[in-house]
């Protein structure tokens, strides 16, 4: 595993780039660990309270530990009419978790999202930001089984 200090240092030349650093940290850890947030605040010359304010503002950033794969279910209107509600229920059932929770094996975290800009193939879910199209309850188990 890469060291969080190196990850943050690799972004330090981007003026105001703390969000880039947060992305890079999440790429590695799937969330922003506390000590990394403190370090990022130091490197980018802002207070910890400010860094925390930024990290909690954006819905793709998390200061809480998450699973290996983050499933996001789009619930914006086009996906909504295409059956997002039923698909969400199917995902919750399949993984035995509710929105915001992580499976006990630490593999999947389930989150909601607004439109991810793939509305040509609704309903859409993303897994670690990779969009999956026209997902239905029937194909769901097969889709998820690809994530080991």
């Amino acid at each position, binding site marked *: 595993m890469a060291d969080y200090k190196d990850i943050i240092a690799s972004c330090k030349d981007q003026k105001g780039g703390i969000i880039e650093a947060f992305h890079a940290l999440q790429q590695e850890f799937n969330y922003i660990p506390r000590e990394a947030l403190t370090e990022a605040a130091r490197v980018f010359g802002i*207070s910890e*309270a*400010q*860094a*925390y*304010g930024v990290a909690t*503002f954006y819905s793709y950033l998390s*200061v809480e530990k998450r699973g290996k794969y983050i499933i996001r279910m789009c619930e914006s209107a086009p996906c909504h009419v295409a059956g997002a509600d039923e698909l969400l229920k199917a995902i919750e059932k399949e993984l035995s978790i509710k929105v915001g929770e992580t499976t006990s094996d630490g593999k999947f975290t389930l989150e909601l999202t607004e439109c991810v800009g793939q509305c040509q193939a609704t309903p859409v879910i993303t897994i670690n930001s990779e969009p999956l199209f026209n997902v239905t309850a029937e194909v769901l188990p097969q889709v998820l089984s690809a994530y080991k």
Partner: protein
Amino acid sequence: MITLTINGKEIQVPKGTMVLDACQQAGADIPTLCYDPDLRLAGSCRMCVVEAKGRPNLMAACVSPAENGMVIETESPDVVESRKIILELLLARHKLECHTCERDGSCKLQDYCYRYGVTDSRYLNEMPHFSKEDPNPFIKRDYDKCIMCTKCVRVCEEITGAQAINVEDRGHHAKISTVFDGKLADSTCVFCGQCVMVCPVGALTSKVSAGKGRSYQTQSVLTTCTYCGTGCTFELNVKDDHVVGVTSVRDSELSPVNKGALCVKGRFGWDFIESEDRLTTPLIKENGELRPASWDEALDFAANKIKEIKAKNGPDALALFSSARATNEENYLAQKLFRAAIGTNNVDHCARL
């Protein structure tokens, strides 16, 4: 100079004047929640909205520069409707308990609800909960009364420089917090209480003054802080001849040194006044025991000792160590006494440490 019309009255103001100031000059009282003349503008509470002819939306007076020829109404039906609804929205998330609130009588939310006749909120439904215990000895943080004006965040950043708090999360989940929503004591907070000073409602209050009297029950006595030579001005809040709190004086004419800002000692440390442990007379140590003495006796005693030491061991056997609680003038006199009358340069001061 530019000319604009406010509530039918034509006034002239210098270019660059904000609509808010222009309105005030025209005698219009504009309600504000997030505006503070000493802080970065936010333009966020929208209480100060006014109507400018020809514009589709209302404008926030505090962040809008006055323009030549503007025609402004400050209490038009649209303006009043907006202010009322904003107050109703704030009430819908507010733990309304004026009967026990420290800020009853000095609360902007209360004042504006009174002014606009807002008795309750048609949007009352789910009541969000933001408050969390913070066991520090000075500041009560009751965010169920917070109206999210962010003045506390700005004052902490811009005047104190502690940057202890910020807005966490977003939308209606947004709230004021320290890093990882912890306790003030675990943050960079220095307990200056500037946030308490600027809070327009009862969200941030002094624990030291809690239950001891509200603004309309106390008298204000303008005074200077005795803790250090900086000489910050503030008002002591006095009830039945007892000091029950400290209020900042933000008027720079009255408070040129600190303009309302204080440190933890000045703002929260006034309870020494009636402390049991407080010294009320000088003490002289005899046979290892301290006994009360009169000022005359104590001063004579000290003067004689000083003379005795000087005669025996020379002036450099003596040293002056003076206190930051003395004023600059007193410190000046003290060093003068030692240099000119006693004849030593052994002079030091606790603020140097």
